[in-house]
């Protein structure tokens, strides 16, 4: 098995593990129920949701900032995908803020929004230039 085939095999493996992980998160982001709550947290769900959203927000904001600064050039499809993830992130953040402020007790909608955000963030891999042109000329 060549290294490239090996890498493709591994990629399939983690895609599956990714899906399993998202199922865990969809069950309520409570994979670390025994962890000590940080200051400001209402409960474990609140703390775990904030942690996931903070990480995702940092990723989305960073990609947004680099694209806005021209560090990476986006085509129309990439721009649309990233804007979709930005919309997911804003929606999930708003739902979280409502939950945290006790304005909403809707954990189901928040969990679904987080799951959607992570799923769409993962789908960004399809937008990146993973298939670079081989540097070797084709065999004659």
């Amino acid at each position, binding site marked *: 098995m060549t290294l490239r085939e090996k890498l493709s095999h*591994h*990629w399939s493996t*983690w895609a599956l593990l*990714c899906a399993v992980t998202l199922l865990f998160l969809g069950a309520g982001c409570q994979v670390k129920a025994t962890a000590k709550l940080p200051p*400001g947290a209402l409960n474990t769900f609140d703390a775990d949701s904030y942690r996931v959203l903070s990480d995702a927000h*940092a*990723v989305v904001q960073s990609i947004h900032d680099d694209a806005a600064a021209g560090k990476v*050039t986006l085509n129309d499809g990439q721009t649309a995908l990233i804007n979709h993830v930005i919309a997911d992130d804003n929606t999930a953040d708003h739902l979280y803020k409502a939950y945290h402020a006790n304005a909403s007790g809707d954990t189901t909608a928040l969990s679904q929004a987080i799951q959607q955000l992570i799923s769409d963030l993962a789908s960004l891999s399809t937008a990146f230039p993973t298939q670079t042109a081989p540097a070797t000329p084709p065999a004659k």
Partner: protein
Amino acid sequence: MSPAILTVISIIAQILSGLIPQLKLSGLTASILKLVDEIVTQLPTLWAALSSGGSTTLEVTAALLAIQAVAKEAAADTNLDPVTLAWVQTLDTAAQKALAADTAAQANVDPSTLTDIEPL
């Protein structure tokens, strides 16, 4: 460790694996390919640890350091596609910011950090 960081690392690893045909001609091969392989092979373990609630901070930090090393070596190679390299660097920065956000989120819950992001 949240799935956002691992998602970004997964994307970077996928991009790096796409660079392998060019890297093989670049003279950087041995160390680069070993690092890429290590990053890729480590990810299933990280995802499994995450799903079982285990701590993966050290492993993710190691993967980030490996990615930085690959990005640094690759950036010095003028034969590589600059568009791809720019994405590697952008995603590397994003992963590091996510790691910092993850640490901060474990120390304090502050929803005011979740400001709206403007569309591009």
